[in-house]
């Protein structure tokens, strides 16, 4: 690819060449660092300095560190789910250069199928006796559900259009998205389904001992449903351990994906197909199969994310995929679409931004989408191909 420097202006002025990709990642981190510094400086100003000008003696400022910390953690949890969905967008985009608009519905399908699994587990008492296993199984079933939907989607709506004009698959994706929403609505009804409230206690005897009726009861920490008051940086903050579970599981899944793409043979095939489908097929890679695997990977992450989401927010509706889908797509673009770490970072950043910024800027929470998209536009002005740029493939969009 060294040849790019001599193969005419196939990129544009605004699109640096491959030779720079190393530098560019450096730039991305520098950029992120800069952004973080600006944000913290602003938050510091708002919390520590600004109130001194108007606060009366003894009065408590509305916006203080505890709010910031809580919102930051809440944002991380929400952002992890965005990131899991965003990866699906990014993987498909990286290979097919198409926006898989129906990916939000793949997520929704996972949540629904997971609901029936966990419901069955609850009915049979399995959920109570083997909570952790039941949740894992639920996740497995949800992942399978999502994967099946994604495979069908690829087969029916996208594969026949491989050679069609670029916008055509976008429309079939929109059509598939409406179809799936309406199908689930008709099948499972318009009332939301609610995941059961599950408790999963860990660390008995280590934490969470409470004096009850004179004796100390150590039931441990409920990882899923309960929330606890904790001191963080000397601030009393209400924390639900599940925030961190989401973050942790998401990071785990994302690392697994990263490993898969970088180290396995199939992952290499994926990257090869992303680079150039024709050449890849000449090299003996089964392009169709690789594309299906890509869809499956994205769907699997979405399915897992859906169960996390549903355990977290409990309600499942046929329309639940829409808003997270749009947000995740935004996150993928923010990070640089087609770029795996970009999607991760974009998701987390968008989640945190939505959660923290409206309060930090003194705006009503109603405007969080305006803040989020405003940020996106500002970022796009400075980095027109996302924070990390397009790395999975160098091809022009």
């Amino acid at each position, binding site marked *: 690819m060294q040849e790019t420097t001599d193969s005419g202006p196939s990129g544009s002025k605004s699109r640096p060449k491959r030779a720079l990709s190393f530098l560019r990642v450096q730039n991305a981190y520098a950029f992120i660092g800069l952004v973080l510094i600006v944000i913290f400086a602003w938050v510091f100003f708002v919390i520590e300095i600004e109130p001194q000008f108007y606060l009366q003696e003894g009065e408590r400022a509305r916006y203080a560190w505890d709010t910031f910390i809580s919102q930051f953690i809440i944002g991380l949890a929400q952002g992890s789910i965005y990131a899991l969905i965003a990866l699906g967008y990014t993987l498909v985009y990286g290979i097919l250069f198409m926006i898989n608009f129906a990916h939000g519905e793949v997520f929704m399908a996972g949540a629904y199928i997971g609901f029936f699994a966990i419901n069955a587990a609850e009915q049979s008492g399995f959920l109570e006796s083997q909570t952790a296993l039941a949740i894992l199984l639920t996740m497995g079933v949800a992942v399978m559900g999502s994967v099946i939907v994604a495979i069908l989607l690829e087969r029916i*709506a996208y594969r026949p259009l491989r050679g069609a004009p670029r916008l055509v698959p976008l429309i079939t994706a929109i*059509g598939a998205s409406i179809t799936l929403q309406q199908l689930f609505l008709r099948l499972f009804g318009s009332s939301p389904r609610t995941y059961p409230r599950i408790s999963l206690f860990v660390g008995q005897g280590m934490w969470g001992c409470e004096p009850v009726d004179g004796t100390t009861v150590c039931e441990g920490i409920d990882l899923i449903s309960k929330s606890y008051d904790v001191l963080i940086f000397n601030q009393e903050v209400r924390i639900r351990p599940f925030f961190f579970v989401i973050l942790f599981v998401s990071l785990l899944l994302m690392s697994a994906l990263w490993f898969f793409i970088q180290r396995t043979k199939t992952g290499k095939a994926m990257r090869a197909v992303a680079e150039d489908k024709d050449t890849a097929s000449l090299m003996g890679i089964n392009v169709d199969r690789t594309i299906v695997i890509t869809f499956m990977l994205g769907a699997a992450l979405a399915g897992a994310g859906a169960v996390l989401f549903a355990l977290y927010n409990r309600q499942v509706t046929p329309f639940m995929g829409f808003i997270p889908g749009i947000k995740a797509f935004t996150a993928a673009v923010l990070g640089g679409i087609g770029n795996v770490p970009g999607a991760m970072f974009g998701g987390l950043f968008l989640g945190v931004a939505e959660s923290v910024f409206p309060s930090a800027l003194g705006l009503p929470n109603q405007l969080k989408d*305006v803040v989020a998209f405003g940020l996106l*536009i500002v970022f796009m*002005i400075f980095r027109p191909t996302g924070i990390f740029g397009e790395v999975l493939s160098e091809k022009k969009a």
Partner: protein
Amino acid sequence: MMNQNNLRFGFLETNTLRYSFYAAIAIFILTLTGIFGTFAQRDVIQDTLSLDLVALVLVIGVPALVAGRSSQSDKPVITILNSAIAGLIAATAVILVVLLETIVPQEELMFVFNNYRPIIGGVATLGAGQDNLIMGILGLLALSLILGGIVGGILSLPQRWMLAILSGLGSMVIIGLMAGQIRNLVTPSDALGVVGAFVAGYGAGYATRTIANPWLRRLLGFIAGGAVGIVFLVLGNTGAFAQNGALLLGGDPSIIMGGAVNSSLTMIIGFGIVGLAGLIVTSASSFVHNSAIFLAVVFALLGMLNVQQRMTVIMAIVTFIAFAAATIFIPPLGTQSNKQYRTLSPQQKRSIDVITGVLALVLALVAPVFMGQYITNVLDLVMLYIIMGIGLNVMVGYAGLLDLGYVASFAIGAYTSAILTTPSIFTTGCIPFEPIADARYAEMCTGILTNWQGVGILTFWQAWPIAIVVSAFTGMALGVPVLRLRGDYLAIVTLGFGEMTRVLTRAQITAPVLGAAQGISPVPFPVIDLTSLNPDWYFELSNASTIYYLYIFSVLAAALVVWRLSGSRLGRAWRAMKADEDVAQAMGVPLVRTKLLAFGVSSAFAGLGGAIFAAQLRGIFPDSFTLLVSINVLSLIIIGGLGSIPGVVVGALMLVGLPEVLREIQDYRLLVFGVLLVVVMLLKPDGLIPPPIRQLSKQQKVPQSASPQPNTQ
């Protein structure tokens, strides 16, 4: 049809198995959504054919159709057998659900499948209940075999006959479903008169073939139509069309005969024009000819429906026969007229084209009189989307800039015009202030209420251009920061604009100006006040039928402007930019200017539509400005064919008009819509009507230099 790997074992083809297997899965799911229960109450033909039976027939018939079509055999027997098998497999899916229902307790089934209602005893088991379930299942299997066989048989017929049967059945179902909406559109006497005049003109066209002078022929056609008019006038004056008159029983007083147009001269001229139309189509292109005759058939059927008032069995049979016959007999006539059209000289062709165009326009202008509020209202929405589609086409179809936030420009136009024309908005955020609360809308929009507290309140006609300009300029302003973005990055940023619009229009902080969720209401309707010319000329564009004229002129203007632009230097620059931005620039196309013009022109049309929309709704609410609008507009231009203006019309009819027709299937409306979106794109990836290739060298008069001389530059 797809024919990859179609092997045959005995008579059975693998395609048959493949498609009917897919279909069976789909049918299984569809049955679980409770489709038969939902449709059970709806009648297509009164007391004879209910919608769930239609659904069952479709469920069996469509797989049979697909399987039959994909069969490569030219032996009808094999096609029939394959179709029958496909129908059988499809029916198995329904039977599986029946079995499921007998095995699984009902409340558990309904817990999972919320809308499912028991189908045993319904149409799916042919009415058989639990006791004789076996009979019901066997009956369904037999029915599916027979039905599949019939479909196969129909497929084996000559193409024209097959089309005839399908179009007859299809139109029967559609007219049956819509009967309530369309039964009062045309009275029998009107239908008879108009169709009579048309036929008279048509006959005159054939009779006068030998006459060379086209204008003489046209005059004769006009006279033929006018003669029919006179006959009907005389009949009308003798009371034949009175409500319970002798000619046709049960019709309402007609629009033309006894309605608005009382002047007999106007009526005769009107009929004459219809006669002229009948004559013109005998030597017009087959498209014009066929659509005109189909229109006449529909008109006649509407007249009959008006008498029957419901989709009775007789009405259904007549509909079937009329459409089937039309499908068989019209195309050959069309070929004939087309042949005649071809032989004409260019000037004569042109004159026929012009006359057809003018007649079509007249038809469009008269249409609201017949169509009634509902259909007109649907057409209004369709035209709104046509205007927006034409606008977005500039951006996406020509300039290649993917915009997912078109709703922003639409909202800006609508809100601008609403704010400028409504007095209440500047004060209390939508509660009309006292002195004006009692004023009539008309006074507001004729400009009586100007300069209230220093704030000018404009009429619609003043606010409209302002709204367009504001939209155009905000469109350009939004374009500036995203000039460097390409492809999907642009898409997501524009989507961001759209989402910001959605949030901001309902946010509390903008409430004093935009009215938050309560919106701005009432927005005055436009008034055309020409009383200075003629005391009677005072028109309120206050309902669907009148606002229609505003829309239709806007559509024509928008189409004209964009058509002109697309063939101009600017349009070429847009398309070059879409194909290859860098090369276009290197050929001297200034990117910034060209892109911004695309943003501006495109937004201007959204603003134009938005302003009319505000006047049509007589109020503006944030609920109208969702992402779905952007998606709809984008989908319709792609479905129609990117960059094609007729494509926009077809796309809008399909994406905005069709859901209204689909209202009849109620809860399945959007599901069918989504499926159609996918299916149309799969079958026609380039859109329904791809843009035409501009034949520039033909349109040019032959170059003067006959001999190839060197380019003297």
